[in-house]
């Protein structure tokens, strides 16, 4: 088990619907490319484990958190807001506030679609590091990579614009990778995706002799 301060696991708290996938994939890419390990509630498919317990376990194991609360909006019939992301952000902040020595080293970045929008519905988090991605994966990568570079105290981590450029190339190649694997992109599990991205980064940046 890594020491608290050297823990490089990043909990991704975001929507999992198809519309959000480009941003979710972008977050995973930026985390791996910056030398960290992405974690998500999607990583274990154990039906016997209570979902809330599973999320608490993963949050407890991650020093860092990326929380996207941009999708707290009315949807469905009847039209109701989605509160899973604010709930998990609250759990993360609560663990940091009331947890032991290891939990107190936690740090997180919060994403919204527009600057200062959160103040209209969750103003109590005003002291947190809240950034706007404007629904664009390039914006999310740039801001997330900058934050991770600070968290890892690693000046060798490339800048967000470079990682966003690499991510665009990856999304071009992903349909072919899926086709070769006889999988549809929507069939990829979190484990598949993380494995594909880490192997893609390695193969792309360290070409075979």
């Amino acid at each position, binding site marked *: *088990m*890594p*020491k608290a301060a*050297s*823990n*490089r*696991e990043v909990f991704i708290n975001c929507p999992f619907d198809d519309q959000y996938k480009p941003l979710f994939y972008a977050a995973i890419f930026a985390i*791996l*490319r*910056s*030398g*960290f*390990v*992405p*974690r998500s509630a999607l*990583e*274990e498919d154990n039906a016997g484990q209570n979902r809330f317990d599973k999320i608490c376990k993963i949050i407890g194991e991650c020093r860092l958190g990326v929380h996207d609360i941009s999708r707290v909006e009315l949807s469905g019939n009847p039209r109701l807001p989605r509160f899973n992301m604010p709930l998990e952000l609250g759990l993360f902040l609560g663990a940091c506030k009331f947890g032991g020595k290891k939990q107190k080293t936690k740090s997180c970045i919060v994403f919204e679609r527009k600057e200062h929008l959160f103040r209209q519905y969750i103003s109590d988090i005003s002291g947190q590091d809240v950034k706007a991605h404007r629904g664009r994966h390039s914006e999310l990568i740039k801001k997330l990579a900058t934050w991770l570079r600070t968290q890892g105290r*690693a000046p*060798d*981590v*490339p800048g967000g614009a470079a990682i966003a450029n690499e991510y665009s*190339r990856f999304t*071009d*190649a992903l349909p*072919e*990778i899926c086709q*070769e*694997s006889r*999988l549809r992109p929507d*069939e*990829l*599990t*979190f*484990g*598949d995706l*993380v*494995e*594909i991205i*880490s*192997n*893609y*980064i*390695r*193969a*792309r*940046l*360290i070409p*075979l002799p």
Partner: protein
Amino acid sequence: MKKPSKAKVSAKKSPAKKTHMGYRVLATLPDGVKLLAPKTKPTHFTSDEIRQTIRRVLRERAASGRS
């Protein structure tokens, strides 16, 4: 009488896995970033299978002028 000394059997060591802050390192990238091993296993393929698939796709893309 002197006992015959036991021949030392040298245990075959498996190659040491590189680690960074307690994490297994998959590779060190040209810019110095250490690519760390994921915590999760893939569902639909093995690591070796997907590694070969990605290399094949990247080779084909490079050959056809798509980087």
